[in-house]
C-alpha cells in the first residue's frame, strides 16, 4: 500500500466545486422544507380529517421507505407525468418532500410544547388564526424546536450524498468522478470525508449556540 496525498493538489478544484453544490443543495432543501414542515405540523393535528388523514398516510409512507427510493420516485416517476426536471431540482424536490415530514414531527413536538391556554388567550383577544400562529404560537416553539431542527439539518447535509444517484455533481459524486480517473479512492474519499466533517462541525456549532440560546430563553419565559 502506498498512499499519495499529493494527489490532492490536482483534484481539489473538482472537490471544491462539488462542495459548493452540496452546500447549495443543503440550503435549498432547508429553505423549501422548513415552511412546508410548519404546514405539515399544523395539518397533522388539524381538526379536519380531510387534512389530517392524507398527511398521516403520506407521513407513514415517506418515513417507511428509503430516501433513495423517494429520489427515484421523483426522478423516474415525474417525466412520464409530463414533468421532466433536471437532476438538481429533482433532488431538491425529493429531499424536500422527505424532510418536510421529518421536520414536521419536530415542529409538531414544538407546537405541543406551547400551553393550550395560549391558543385560548389569543382567541379571547379576537386574533385571526393565521396571526395567532405566526405572532403568538410559532415564536414560543423556537426554544423546543431549534436544537432538534439543527440536528435534523445535519441529516439533510449527509443526505445530499444520495443525489449522486441521479447525477447531481455534489461532493460525493465529484469524489467518485475523481477517484475513478485517478485510481486513488482512499485519498480522495478522505478529503471528501474531512469536508463533510467540517460542514457538519459548522452545523454542530450552530446547534450548540442554539441550545445555549434555547436554555436561556426557555428558562426566562417560564415562571
Amino acid at each position, binding site marked *: 500500500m502506498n498512499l499519495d496525498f499529493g494527489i490532492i493538489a490536482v483534484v481539489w478544484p473538482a472537490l471544491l466545486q462539488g462542495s459548493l453544490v452540496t452546500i447549495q443543495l443543503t440550503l435549498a432543501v432547508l429553505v423549501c422544507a422548513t415552511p412546508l414542515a410548519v404546514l405539515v405540523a399544523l395539518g397533522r393535528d388539524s381538526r379536519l380529517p380531510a387534512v389530517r388523514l392524507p398527511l398521516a398516510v403520506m407521513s407513514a*409512507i415517506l418515513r417507511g*421507505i*428509503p430516501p433513495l427510493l423517494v429520489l*427515484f*420516485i421523483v426522478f*423516474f416517476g415525474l417525466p*412520464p407525468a409530463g414533468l421532466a426536471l433536471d437532476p438538481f431540482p429533482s433532488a431538491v424536490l425529493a429531499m424536500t418532500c422527505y424532510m418536510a415530514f421529518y421536520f414536521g414531527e419536530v415542529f409538531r413536538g414544538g407546537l405541543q410544547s406551547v400551553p393550550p391556554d395560549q391558543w385560548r388567550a389569543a382567541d379571547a383577544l379576537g386574533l385571526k388564526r393565521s396571526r395567532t400562529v405566526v405572532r403568538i404560537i410559532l415564536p414560543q416553539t423556537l426554544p423546543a424546536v431549534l436544537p432538534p431542527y439543527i440536528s435534523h439539518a445535519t441529516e439533510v447535509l*449527509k443526505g445530499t450524498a444520495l443525489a449522486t*444517484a441521479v447525477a447531481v455533481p455534489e461532493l460525493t459524486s465529484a469524489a467518485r468522478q475523481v477517484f475513478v480517473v485517478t485510481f486513488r479512492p482512499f485519498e480522495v474519499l478522505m478529503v471528501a470525508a474531512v469536508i463533510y*466533517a467540517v460542514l457538519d462541525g459548522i452545523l454542530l456549532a450552530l446547534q450548540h449556540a442554539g441550545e445555549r440560546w434555547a436554555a436561556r430563553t426557555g428558562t426566562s419565559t417560564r415562571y
Partner: protein
Amino acid sequence: MRIDLLMDYWPAIWNGFLITVLLSFVVLALSTPIAFFLALARQSQFAMLRWPATVYVNVFRALPVLIVLYFAFYALPQFGMSLSAFQAATAGLVIASSAYLAEDIRAGLAAVDPGQRQAATALGIPYWRALRRIYLPQAIPISLPPYITRAIIIVKGTALASLVAVNDLTAEAVRAISITYRPYEFLAVAAALYLLINALLAVLQSLAERRIALKHGRVVAGPATVVQ
C-alpha cells in the same frame, strides 16, 4: 398498470427483496453487539477505551453513509482487501450503523438512575454482574423504542447498497424501470415491500414494549389491557 410486466420481473424483484432482508438482518446482527461494546467503552473510566470509542462514534455519525460504503467498496482494494459487493456493503453499513446504535444504547444506559450504580458499587457487586443483572434490565426498556426506530432507518439505509453494485430491492426495481420504462409499477412494488419490512419491525416494537410493560407491571394503554 401492467400486471404482466410485474409478473415477468417478479422473480428478480423477489430476489432483490430477499437480498435486502438478508442485508438488513446481517447488518443489524453484526452492528448491535459492536454498538453495545462501543456504548460501554464510552462510559468506561479508562481513557484508553473511552477516547477511541468516542472518536469512532462521532466520526461515523458525521459522514454520509454512502461515503463509508465507498470506502469499503472502492478504497479497501487499494489495501489489498477485495470484498464482494455484498461484503463491502455489509462492512460499510455495519461500521456506520454501529456508531448510530451505540449512541442510542448509551442514552439508555445513561438514563438508568445513577443511584442504582451507587447501590451496586456500595454492595461490592462486580461490574459485569451488575451490568447484566441490574443496569441492563433497566436500560433495555428505555433503549428499545429508539433502537427499533434506528433499525428502521438502517433497513432503509440498505438501499444505498444498490449504489455499490449490490442487487438489492432498489437496484432490481431501478433495473426493471430502465428496461421497461414503466416506473410506477416497480416503484410502487418496491415501496410496498420496504413498508412491509418496516411495518413488521414496528409490530415487533409494540410487542416488545407490551412484554416489557407486562413484566414490569406497568399499566398498558390500548388493547393490551383488554387481553389481560
